[in-house]
């Protein structure tokens, strides 16, 4: 790509687009160019300093030459170039170092173990949380691309349960979940041929079915995305996942990448995405454990109303000073967020942004200022994200349109951090992480007393009450009436709350299975032709599933397959009541900018 893009950008910035893979020289050049970059003179905490990652103690947990990559990230000088020559600049946010990092980690054998079931959900968590999925975001997984040694001739590759490919319309591979893209050039050309043969017939291929396998195609201008899967997910879900992968790519590069293909159909995009394997594999992994990927809603960390208010107030302060969005998150859960007037943030954009931040190791090591694009907000333009981790799980993201706002945002962050510490929001966040979310075992038999809002999701009601509650019998068998799990989605808030996993759903395979069942239920409830259904009851050998869609909310609940129908329905009503009782703690209320 270097020749192509360098021809199109101003001389000083050329280096930024140089193929990150071509080692030393580009790095030097980049360093040269970086003298023009404002953040270069950042304090040591920004490990930008010419390979002086040392200043940061550990530049990167992976101990890689991340000096380059992070340098890239904060390289924001060429804003105009973005506008004009969009694709050339994204190179400046390429992650040369991480490409290295991914291959390094992939050598580490751990991934092989985690790969047995294609994408096991990782339950490992340092906080001692037992909940598994909902508390096990991708960051706990071995990041990066795996099985690079495979290609389409290997049996192991063919037997992978779920492949994802990105290729260009000329058939050039851009990304493959498994195997080395370069070795998959022939296979990639086959995919391209299928798409174009159907296209030549005046049609557009959506999917192909063969036995347990489904091949799903998505064409986005010059970018083709393909999923080959033998999981039980329906077409609609897989297509949604391809849309998200495309969105993730746009988040890194903006849609102006299309112009490169207009100029040169054989344009090679791989260098632009260099090092971002880890971002894609983390997103793909989240399809297994994060309901946000199919619900198109976000979830909040449970917090006392006042605590969230306090966080919101300080974010609002900052937003008034020219920040487009201020988002405070803990792992994939929102603590609070505010937006400038009339600006609205789509849940998918939040998902992609938080995935990007959480999966990119270097964000954790220092404050960063990185160009990103929110595909639902404006797919053509970059915004600038100031990202800072306040602790291991909690991070602040300040988004702006201005490329030179770094110092301003840094000041904002310092103010926010101070307030959060003073108001003990951060310690509340830590406590909430340990306490976890709603548990089916805690489902109250009677509506909670409205007045005395309980400390944590109504778990500790009056002592007498808790004695009466027959908690014991439910241990190991879920909640009352065989309730195993539920997800409640508030339509107008665009938020959902998902109960923690409890026994008997204790292993990752069961949990993933349930999410897939939810996905099927979700797809089944909304057929394009006939509009959403109202209620669905579904019983098979694994579960009783109940879905209830109203104009205000959607409820998805899973019960023991032998659950009594009448009791299950009654229990669903109680779940809805319970959610309403604690809605101030589990949802972000009155987020005014959410006006879509």
């Amino acid at each position: 790509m270097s020749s192509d893009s360098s021809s199109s950008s101003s001389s000083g910035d050329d280096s930024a687009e140089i193929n990150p893979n071509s080692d030393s020289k580009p790095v030097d050049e980049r360093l040269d160019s970086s003298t023009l970059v404002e953040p270069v003179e950042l304090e040591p905490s920004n490990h930008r300093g010419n390979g002086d990652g040392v200043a940061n103690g550990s530049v990167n947990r992976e101990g890689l030459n991340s000096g380059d990559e992070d340098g890239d990230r904060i390289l924001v000088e060429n804003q105009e170039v973005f506008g004009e020559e969009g694709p050339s600049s994204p190179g400046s946010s390429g992650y040369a170092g991480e490409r290295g990092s991914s291959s390094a980690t992939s050598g580490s054998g751990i991934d092989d173990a985690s790969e047995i079931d294609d994408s096991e959900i990782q339950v490992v968590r340092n906080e001692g949380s037992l909940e598994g999925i909902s508390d096990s975001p991708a960051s706990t997984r071995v990041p990066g691309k795996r099985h690079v040694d495979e290609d389409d001739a290997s049996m192991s590759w063919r037997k992978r349960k779920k492949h994802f490919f990105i290729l260009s319309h000329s058939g050039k591979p851009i990304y493959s979940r498994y195997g080395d893209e370069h070795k998959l050039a022939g296979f990639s050309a086959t995919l391209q041929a299928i798409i174009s043969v159907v296209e030549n017939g005046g049609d557009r291929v959506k999917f192909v079915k063969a036995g347990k396998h489904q091949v799903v195609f998505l064409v986005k201008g010059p970018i083709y995305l393909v999923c080959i899967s033998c999981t039980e997910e329906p077409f609609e879900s897989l297509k949604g996942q391809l849309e998200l992968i495309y969105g993730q790519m746009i988040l890194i590069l903006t849609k102006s990448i299309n112009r490169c293909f207009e100029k040169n159909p054989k344009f090679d995009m791989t260098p632009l995405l260099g090092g971002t394997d880890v971002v894609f594999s983390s997103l793909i992994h989240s399809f297994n454990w994060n309901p946000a990927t199919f619900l198109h809603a976000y979830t909040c960390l449970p917090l006392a109303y006042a605590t969230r208010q306090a966080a919101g107030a300080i974010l609002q302060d900052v937003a008034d000073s020219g920040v487009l969005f201020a988002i405070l998150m803990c792992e994939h859960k929102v603590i609070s967020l505010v937006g400038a007037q009339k600006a609205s943030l789509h849940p998918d954009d939040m998902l992609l942004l938080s995935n990007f931040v959480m999966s990119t190791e270097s964000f954790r090591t220092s404050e960063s200022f990185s160009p990103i694009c929110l595909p639902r907000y404006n797919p053509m333009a970059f915004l600038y994200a100031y990202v800072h981790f306040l602790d291991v799980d909690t991070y602040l993201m300040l988004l702006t349109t201005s490329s030179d706002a770094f110092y301003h945002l840094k000041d904002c962050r310092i103010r926010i951090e101070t307030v959060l510490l003073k108001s003990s929001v951060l310690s509340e966040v830590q406590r909430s992480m340990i306490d976890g979310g709603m548990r089916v075992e805690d489902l109250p038999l009677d509506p909670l007393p409205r007045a005395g809002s309980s400390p944590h999701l109504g778990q500790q009601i009056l002592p007498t009450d808790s004695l009466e509650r027959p908690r014991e019998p439910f241990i190991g068998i879920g909640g009352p009436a065989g309730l195993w799990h539920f997800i409640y989605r508030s339509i107008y808030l665009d938020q959902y709350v998902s109960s923690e996993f409890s026994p008997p759903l204790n292993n990752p395979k069961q949990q993933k299975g349930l999410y897939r069942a939810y996905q099927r239920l979700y797809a089944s409830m909304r057929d394009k032709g006939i509009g959403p259904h109202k209620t669905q009851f579904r019983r098979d050998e694994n579960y009783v599933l109940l879905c209830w869609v109203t104009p205000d909310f959607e409820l998805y609940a899973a019960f023991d397959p032998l659950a009594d129908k009448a009791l299950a329905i009654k229990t669903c009503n109680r779940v809805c009541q319970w959610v309403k009782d604690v809605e101030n703690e589990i949802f972000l209320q009155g987020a005014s900018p959410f006006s879509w």
Partner: protein
Amino acid sequence: MGLAFNGTGSEGMRLCIFDLRRGQNEGHEIDKILFFFPADLPFTTQLSVIGLSEGLITFTRIFSPEAACEVIEAERHSHVFYEAEPDIWMIMIVEKSKELEAVWRIDALRELLKEIHSLFMMFHGSIRVLLDKEPSGGLTRAHLYPFIMDYLRDFLVGKKLQLPSFRDCLKGRRTVQMLTVGREAAIEVQTLVKILESCGGSTPCSSLILFQDLLVSTTLSPEDTVNLFTYAVLRLTPHALSSGARSWTYLHKGNSSSNVATESTFAPSGSFSEQFYGSEDISCAGDNRYRVTRPLQHDKWFRGKDGFLITDICGVDVGSSYITSPTVWLQQTGERMYLCAYQYKSLTLILLIPLSSIVNEEQGVSIVKQQLRENASLKILKVEEKLSKGWGGENAYHVSGYRYLLVDGNRDISRASPPAKVTTLTKESLLALNRLREEVDSEKSRAKWDNPGRNKDLEVCIRAKNNAWAVARITRGKELYMVLEKANETLFYASDAVEKFSNRYCSGAFSLD
């Protein structure tokens, strides 16, 4: 002359059969094509359809060697695949028009392909055997072309092919519909079956008895029963005979080859495809290269004065003294049988006489016929009377408030609400059930791969947007599909309704709670 439908009316559908083992060398690709509809499409177009299909079969086998491509869903077309015999593929491409009517179930379309192939096998044997018999492929094409065109003609409405759509979601193709028979009548039927069996003398005959369009008894395997039952309902029952006569508006007797060309729904096709498919040879007139019977040709069955059905599907004039009986292959035994049908009022008897037991066809068959007349006439009268008395009419199996389809997959039997009652349902309800059936189809197919031999157990109740309930229940190989309109909104109401239905009409097969 040719058999192609008017191009304009049928561009919504393409159907082709090809053999992956043929035409491997460059320049000979055309050898692969055994059938293509519409035949007047340029060969380059035909080959591109086959090229894409072949490509996807190869491609999908990389990941799924045990099951290659089953369907391609594109924005404007669905391509339905069916591997009828090893390496012999049938592909149906249907166009999705903008109107909502073009919504179907892929499995229902595949059942159509299965039906075509099973019926073809019943009359002509396997395609592979035909190809082996004459490697040029001419013989196979000459058989397939008229056969499938005759079959498709049943779906012509005006000039358009009307394939099974969501409106047929309460129908079970490739299953048999049975008549419920009282105890007394059952005993009479049993006696009749015994008599029929002995009509062949030393070799027992197989038989099928139908009342109206419903099966009363069979001595054949389930698969053969389905095939013969399907054929009977298409061409032999009183209903089939009369409806054929109605639709046949322009019939030239005496010149069997020209009446094909002049029929209003057919148009002359391009001459090159005629040669290719040998469509000039489709009649049975003696001067042809291939002698091809056309068992699905319309209005080729007549009821003779003696009650036996006579046919000229072999091209012999009805008036001629020598009337041949068509033959069929049984799937289960691989045996070839003469097909002999007798009709009395609403009763249709199908007698299958092993070819091996008869030396001289004309003589042998007429002896059997005579036996039947002498030994069974009285019993036939009695059975017809009994069944007519017990017969509840067209709406006999209507259950008020319910629109249902009940399928017993173990025995290939189904029962459904009368079509006239199903049409009272709103489009939304039918679409909801059609979609639900698609989901069940894919669950069933997944279960087939995951746990072969184990039956899926599933219960789904959906309250659709229009407040109708769409219900599916699968248990122990039995399936129940139901639409309840104007029903109460509670789930209890729906499951209670299913429960009642199950207890009353399915001996509690679906009563699980």
